[in-house]
């Protein structure tokens, strides 16, 4: 079985592309990083990949709202190739700014009748880095296969997931699309700061679309692919693998590699 090919898409202001490509390689994929100009110049280039990744950063400075400009550029040029990519079973992973792009572009939540969604300013009013505990909900998305809690860092100023329609969150939850939630130390879904770092209703940390194949999350799995990445490794030792690596591995496995 050939290794799946992962495209890491880089735009002006993207700054997590190198470690994201590294994580894909560690998980057994082949990773290539392309500048947005190359993708927009040859939209069919997407056809040779099985995975599309939108990494973290501040695409276009997050001017006009996080992820907004990249979402707009992708929407105008990549609409058809992206639909083709998804139709043939491709996986899309958006991390942090990439998640913001997927939401602003309407690819997430991606279900009809939910109205608009956005990722907006943290309740704290500023950018914040901290480690968070997360509870995955397996079932729908190939990126998450069990409900074992995982620990990943968040680093964002605009991570509060908000839906325009009042009952939209309940509908998303019942459709199984809310696949990653912030949790407290004891593993309960966290509604309060700092366990819920941004004030997201429903403690939403990550979402998938109705197919499960488009997955976006605010925390950074590529920053926990080695036990040394964990903030407390000098206390707990180095024998556990980084939690974030599982997300990349699951995707590679789902593609049959």
């Amino acid at each position, binding site marked *: 079985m050939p290794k799946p090919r992962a495209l890491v898409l*880089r735009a*002006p*202001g*993207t*700054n*997590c592309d*190198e*470690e994201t490509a*590294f*994580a894909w390689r560690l998980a057994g994929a082949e990773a290539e990083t392309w*500048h947005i*100009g*190359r993708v927009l110049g040859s939209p069919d280039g997407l056809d040779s990949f099985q995975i599309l990744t939108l990494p*973290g*950063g*501040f695409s*276009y*400075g997050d*001017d*006009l*709202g996080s992820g*907004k*400009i990249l979402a*707009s*550029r992708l929407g*105008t040029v990549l609409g058809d190739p992206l639909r083709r990519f998804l139709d043939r079973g491709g996986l899309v992973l958006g991390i942090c700014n990439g998640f913001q792009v997927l939401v602003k572009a309407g690819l997430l939540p991606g279900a009809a009748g939910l109205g*608009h*969604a*956005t990722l*907006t*300013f943290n*309740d704290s*009013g*500023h*950018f*914040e*880095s*901290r*480690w968070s505990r997360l509870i995955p909900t397996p079932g729908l998305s190939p990126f998450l296969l069990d409900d074992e809690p995982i620990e990943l*860092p968040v*680093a964002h100023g605009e991570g509060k997931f*908000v*839906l*325009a329609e009042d009952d939209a969150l309940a509908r998303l939850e019942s459709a199984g699309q809310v696949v990653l939630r912030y949790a407290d130390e004891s593993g309960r879904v966290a509604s309060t700061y700092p366990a819920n770092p941004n004030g997201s209703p429903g403690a939403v940390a990550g979402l998938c679309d109705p197919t499960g194949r488009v997955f976006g999350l605010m925390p*950074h799995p*590529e*920053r926990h*692919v080695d036990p*040394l*990445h964990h*903030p*407390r*490794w*000098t*206390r707990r030792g*180095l024998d556990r693998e980084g939690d974030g690596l599982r997300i990349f591995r699951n995707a590679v496995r789902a593609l049959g590699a």
Partner: protein
Amino acid sequence: MLWHLQIDPAPGQLDLAGRRIAADAAELGLPGPWTVGASRGFLIEGPLDRPSVTRAAEAVLVDPVVETYSMRGVDEFQAVASSSTVVHVLPKPGVTDPEAESALALLRDLGLAVENVRTIRTYRVEGPEASLPRLIGRVLANDAVEQAVVGPLPFDRLGQGTSYRFARVEVPILGKSDAELLDISRKGQLHFSLAEFRAVERYFEELGREPTDCELETLAQTWSEHCSHKTLRGRIEFDGRAIDNLLKQTIFGATQRMGLDWLVSVFADNAGVVRFDEDYDVCFKVETHNHPSAIDPYGGANTGLGGVIRDPMGTGLGAKPICNTDVFCVAPPDTPADSLPAGVLHPRRILKGIVAGVRDYGNRMGIPTVNGALVGHPAYLANPLVFCGTVGLIPRGMSTKSVEPGDRIVAIGGRTGRDGIHGATFSSVELTSESESISGGAVQIGNAITEKMVLDVVLQARDRGLFRSITDCGAGGFSSAVGEMGAELGAEVDLDRAPLKYEGLSYTEIWISEAQERMVLAVPPEKWAELRALCESEGVEATDLGRFVDTGRLTLKYHGEVVGDLSMHFLHDGRPAVIRKATFTPVEPKPLELPNQADYTKDLLDILGTWDVCSKEWIVRQYDHEVQARTVVKPLVGVLDDGPGDASVVLPVAGSMRGLAISCGINPRHGLIDPYAMAGCVIDEAVRNCVAVGADPDRIAILDNFCWGNTERPETLGSLVRAAEGCRDVALAYGTPFISGKDSLYNEYTHEGKSLAIPPTLLISAMGQIPDVRKCVTMDLKEAGNLLLLVGETRDELGGSHWAMVRGLEGGDVPRVDPETAPRIFRALYSAISRGLVRSCHDLSEGGLAVALAEMALAGGLGLEAGFGLDHSSSHPASLLFSESPTRFVLEVRPDAVAELRSLFEGLPIGEVGTVTDTPRLVVRHSETTLIDAPLSALKEAWQAPLRW
């Protein structure tokens, strides 16, 4: 047609900006209460009708889930009715406005005929009218870069700037009197001394012509203190002894005498370079951006970090930045608002602004900010210090550069505007209460994304061999960058080719502008097309400005007409040497009166709550300290990720276990008493922080940053001479080389004839190498039952200590390093950590042993019991607890490892000082007396409360 699109939080959404403003006003002590509603928005100009603006709003400018909007055409501006006072704040014309630039580009992509966009913030304010001007001046707007409008918007279009009409300007200086020359220098903000201006006059007299404005500016910038460091490289008459080139005799000299084979390029390039492993070198530079940050804290710190990031980018053939540092010195943020002198911003506002400035640049660049420090001292009131540093990684063999005749002079990155004119000369003078108004132009505005794009291009171009040399445009802009690169050859520059942000810049403004995010490259002509294509593919502007030539002259042209023509030799070597007098009178030794008391718990709590010691979590968490996924010892450590780590550790090369520890040392309180001793102690602090996490003491490189007052005063310069000598002696004793440095003099403020100078401030930044990061240790206590050992000798050194400060005591001996013993302690500790004998390790600094124990306990969530036996009975408890003697550590060691550990410290001062417990209390006893007894919760609260903002 001009439109105002106003964007508000939708019903039910928080008005975070409005709340923040009201809170800031209350914090600054403005009479209130204030109710503030905040809107963001855009002014949009172009032949647009209402449906087009609606489309712009809904398609890109507004987030419909959380925001609502309203729009007004220019003819409706007057008709806005509001029960509250409406204040609009917008960038002054010509000030960089990145969000507006993005909006303009995207709206044009949508096919809208937009001509110009500017961002605007609108506030609806309710509160005491008499204080409104202060609210505007202190909270809502920064007059240096923004304009505030009360009531309806008074304009009908956005200023475009006026076009420039060329006229070659000569400045008559030949035959002028001393007074006339000084007047020309002052009015032109050239800041020449009389001797310098006379040298310039003689040069032009020989040429038989008057200088152009551009030539004078070039000389003023090149000869400025900021760019030439003329004081420390000049001649100093120090109490009857002559010192030629203080830096060479102390800092550089010490490094040279060490003759270390792992140094690659020191004091030669934009950053100092050392060998890292078989394949890579690493470089490090720390800069200050003090004067701009005093006037515009956000912009000053923002561009301070942006500027120092360009140093590694412009080192050798370009290094990749892998982490940043930041150190701030401010007046205590609880300084009463009504005690501020004219023109001085409140320290709380300064601190919030500089933290936000560093945050927004570093995070956007995607460089982890991993180390820092905060110093609070009243003398920084008018002169806050902002130090920013960047470490870079560069493949071996790429640490040198050259320029060949015929190479093209290529500028890449941001466009040139009027920002930062006279920054170099401005940093070289004292601030006054009028500085804000006369030097507003010296404030630069950053756009981190432009710099990130430049970085992306530079690293690719480097690896493809597309240029021979690179440097950044810092202070002095093109003048400094091209002048330095072409110093050995010559250069011809066509100033009219430089891409401009807006019309109206004169040739001189183009030449000396300090617009940000620009790099200058020497490009072999045959590579220019490939470089241009690469830049185009990444959306980075690249411009051929001229060429390097073998003429020994710097020739500047504007549309073919020569506007400047100077000999490189005169430019770089023609400045008359500065001769300054220096004197030093040691502070009269005075004993410190030790109190007779039993309990020191309150003393400890007070020290934990000082600005220097308290938790910096509020700052650290605003920085992305883990981007690039290489930070393996974080700045915050411990069971709840909130303990104060001694140094952060990064992995420069993915897949390799070789690490770099980054740390610093700073202590102006010791500097006020004895600058020589202080220099040794801050070197020791930087080194011991690195060693405390596991760095090899024989692979630590350090940087100096001297920030002093006006060194034209002999006693100010004398204290600097003593500090430099302290640096030399301790660096030599430790075998720890300086690899780069920077000085910032003239940190004084004059108001109504009274002068306020900063204390002598020396920041030492350290970069230590760790062969295998899996051996690293952190400072949080790990397991109950382990033993605590104190390494190093505790002496009665409470002079300038934090304990003396919180107790209001004066006198006492300042700490001094023991140059014989200290390096042996460092090596023994390195050996112990490498063998895995140490569970946790914390260095002792401000607040001494008591603070170190408290921090270890609260970081680990474990208690401890400590005590001093009979062998310490002769020492006073205050010294045992709070002395700040250097080269000391507390180690947590498993009982079964103590014997082996002790054997490594044979002949060195080490002793058991306590045990780790699972009772959450800190208890310290001296013989039978309980000196400290406090629950961890009380310690933690005292430590976290001050900066819980």
